[in-house]
């Protein structure tokens, strides 16, 4: 046993070297939820490709929100959001006041609208080679997503330049890719505020894959704009736990009682 461990350690070191530079803590960004950051080994690494999928096309609002929140967590530098014309048609233009209310200074952001996926990939290839950027958000609209070659190309360029890539898949299903981590995001009912108003942005995240070997996990997060960090969503007050046959006009009913709803 003892004899076999030195070669094993050497092999491990070799694999680590192949896997790219060793990730120090300074090259990671934290999401703000201690339990999650701990399980991820101190947050997600910068200068890597992180991929996120919308659970359904209806969840693209949450998908965009998650990407923005992660971009805020990554750092303070300039951001590029590379989109496709069909994407702008499907989910709308970026709206500055809303971004500001999420905690992102819109002045940091440049929105790029490519006419098609080829243009998007080319722009993305140029953008990830620019070390002045903090993060690049790429939003392809193809039903098949990026292929392994193009995602590998982006990931390698990102490792060199130090740019974090956030890849948003609104329609595509997970396929082979060179992403460091892969998430699926689903909108989640927010903690209800007074008078039945929707609360802070909330979403359910599922870790599908992590190159660091973190097993899959599922967590509900809420965005805390004031601290620019995530926090774990409260379990109570989840509107999707309402009985299915309950009155649809929740706001009407809420005028009577002020208490939190639960099943």
């Amino acid at each position, binding site marked *: 046993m003892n004899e076999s461990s030195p070669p094993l350690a050497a092999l491990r070191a070799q694999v680590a070297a192949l896997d790219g530079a060793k990730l120090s803590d300074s090259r990671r960004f934290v999401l703000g939820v201690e339990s999650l950051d701990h399980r991820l080994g101190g947050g997600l690494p910068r200068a890597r490709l992180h991929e996120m999928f919308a659970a359904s096309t*209806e*969840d693209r*609002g*949450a998908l*965009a*929100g*998650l990407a*923005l929140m992660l971009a805020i967590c990554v750092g303070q530098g*300039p951001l590029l959001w590379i989109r496709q014309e069909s994407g702008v048609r499907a989910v*709308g*233009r*970026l*709206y*500055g*006041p*809303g*971004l500001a*209310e*999420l905690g992102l*200074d*819109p*002045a940091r952001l*440049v*929105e*790029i*609208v*490519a*006419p098609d996926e080829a*243009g998007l990939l*080319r*722009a993305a290839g*140029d953008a990830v080679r*620019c070390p*002045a*950027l903090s993060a690049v958000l790429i939003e392809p609209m193809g039903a098949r997503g990026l292929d392994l070659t193009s995602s590998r190309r982006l990931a390698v360029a990102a490792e060199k330049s130090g740019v974090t890539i956030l890849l948003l898949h609104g329609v595509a299903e997970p396929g082979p890719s060179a992403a460091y981590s892969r998430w699926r995001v*689903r*909108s989640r*009912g*927010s903690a*209800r*505020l007074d*008078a*039945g*108003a*929707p*609360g*802070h*942005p*909330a*979403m359910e995240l599922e870790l599908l894959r992590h190159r660091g070997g973190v097993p899959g996990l599922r967590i509900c997060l809420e*965005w805390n*704009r*004031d601290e620019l960090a995530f926090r774990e969503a409260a379990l109570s007050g989840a*509107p*999707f736990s*309402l009985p299915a046959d309950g009155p*649809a*006009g*929740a*706001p009407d009913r809420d005028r009577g009682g002020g208490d939190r709803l639960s099943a």
Partner: protein
Amino acid sequence: MRLAAVSPPALVLGLTPGLSLADARARIPDLAVAGVDPTADSAWLERIADGCDRYTPMVALDPPEGLILDISGCAHLFGGEEGLRDDLAARLARLGMAASSALADTPDAARALARYAHSSPSPLGEGDVTSTLKNLPIESLELDAEDGVALRRAGLKRIGDLAARPSQLISARFGEAAADRLGRIAGGRDIRIAARRPEAALVLERRFAEPIGRTEAALAAIGELARQAAHRMAEAHRGGRRFEARLFRTDGLVRALRIETGLPVRDVPLIMRLFTERLEALADPVDPGFGFDLVRLSVPMFEPLAPLQLPLEGGALAEGELAQLLDRLSTRLGRDRVRRLAPRDSHIPEQAMFAFPAIEAGATGSWPVQEPGEPPLRPTHLFDPPQSIDVMAGVPDGPPQRFRWRRHLHEVVLAEGPERIGALWWRRADNRGFSRDYYRVEDREGRRFWLFRHGLYGREAERPAWYIHGLFA
């Protein structure tokens, strides 16, 4: 329908402009006709005017079919005034254009000679021009038909007849404009023509004795000119934010390539990279035709640019890198596709922000700040225009209970509103306009939307329409 213009063979057959099409067809049954296209005509005139830029920067349009060139001080480059005119005529002939041209001391005299002199006054001395001008028919004044007839009846058939008379009489009878035109045609009164383009800060050009047929060679010539331009700009501590390369074809047509940068530059590889990018991004590739015989690079405006000192920490360098990236993407995709967002002071949601090309110096302002602890009240994505939805509400002016958007039924469980946003009624002639009642809603699956009812129920609209305006995170 009438004939607007006829070709020379048709003229021989006896057809004239103004003849009705039915008459013309009766005379010549297999007559080929095409519709008049004034837009294409003026575009073509613009292209010819672009080609004339090779002679002088002072080119003015004289629509619908004329051009006026101010060749003061330029003619010697082309073998004198006659040489220039022959060169121009040869190029136009190669394009298949029939043109008449004239040289004179003032723009109006040249115009009148080109249009109304019957015999082309080709080799003219000083005295000949004056006598030809005096022999022009009075139609060259381009007065009303009535006034023209009146002049002819009075026996004044030539410009000379009129020019001999005191101008007060002419302006009293035919108006100030007529006397003015007469003065400008025959009286030697000079006016400056308005050039189509302002003069550039720096213009460099290279002529080729033998036309070059390949675009790559033209690009190399642009590179050579860019090097000279960079040298000149470095001496003056200046940089350019716009560069324009014009490739003049031998047949007189021109292809222009324009690039733009966010920060002033004079870095030759950078400039050339953008030109290459621009060439690749062209929807219709550059066609050298019979070759280019003149390549010109102009920098419309200089901006201060001190010699660069590399900072130790690399901060300015990083900023420059981002600017270069944005330049490149703007050149490739078009400047309106690479944009930043800026706030605008308006309570109408879609006007509270505008997007401007990232290549332009940014209008910055502060975005509205929210109370701590509040959830976002504005969506991250906005539909432009808002999309129509079917909504069921408990009461006509209450919050929505369920709505159908993109064939999907959403059950509203949480809603906040209405946030009433009034129309800009003071901007409208009828002082009206629909208010909007905005609701922030969350459906059963936890998706958050921004909906509004267009028009107040009962007061502004009988059945207010509903729209979805944005998506929340």
